[in-house]
């Protein structure tokens, strides 16, 4: 329900003229609510940016969101290439 709530708020903020992007751990809810920009992380609930005290991991997720903001020219939903506890394997 967290994902629906944040998605509904996102829709209104975006419509007000402020670009938005969301991280999501529930792709079905984020997809169904329809948001302008979303990135699916296969992470547990409660850990959208990763594990506690793992700034390098948080920065990777944050950077992915920023790159999505820079790249998307229409409503876009992507999947992040990171995996929980193997988050840096793609590097």
């Amino acid at each position, binding site marked *: *329900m*967290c*994902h629906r*709530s*944040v998605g*509904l*708020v*996102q*829709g*209104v*903020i*975006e*419509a*007000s*003229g*402020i*670009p*938005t*992007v*969301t*991280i*999501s*751990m*529930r*792709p*079905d*809810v984020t*997809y*169904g*609510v*329809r*948001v*302008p920009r979303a990135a699916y992380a296969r992470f547990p*609930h*409660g*850990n*959208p*940016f990763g*594990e*506690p*005290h793992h*700034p390098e991991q*948080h*920065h*990777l997720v*944050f*950077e*992915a*969101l*920023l*790159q999505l*903001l*820079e790249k998307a020219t229409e409503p*876009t*939903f*992507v*999947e*992040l*290439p990171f995996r929980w506890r193997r988050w840096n394997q*793609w590097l």
Partner: protein
Amino acid sequence: MRPIPLEPIDSTGLQQKFDDWIGFVERSHHGSNPRINSGEAFTELKKPLAESRVALVTTAGAHLDSQEPFHVETVAGDPTHRVLPDDLDPSRLRFTHTHYDTSPAEQDPNCVFPIDRLHELVELGRIGEASPVHIGMMGFNPDPGPIQDDLAPRVAGILADAEVDVAIMVPG
């Protein structure tokens, strides 16, 4: 940082899963209804991120220890917000939410509210500046009506007043 591969999600089955979930929510919570966004809103970046003012907006139940905790004992949810000043002391953040495991956030708020990461990105010049205010909400709200009609416009107004250029949305 080099480009991160961002592939479109495989959306097969997602709509059906969403419809099933909405059905479950409607059956199990009084006052629920299937509201969604129009899906048409899309606002282009107005300036480079290195010149943009960025806010964090989370439904992970974030508030300061000096602020009223979110009401998590009611079946109706709590469609209110807390304004989180950018210069807050992260050790005073609390996470009041009973529908996800808040223990990672309690160990390190940056898991769901990456305020230190935001400041580091400003230091690095990757983004222009942090918004003077961020927004904490609690996402357990069976009825999406008050979210869409009251809470979201209030939050959008706060961000507009703070002259925010970009909002980063974070569920719990």
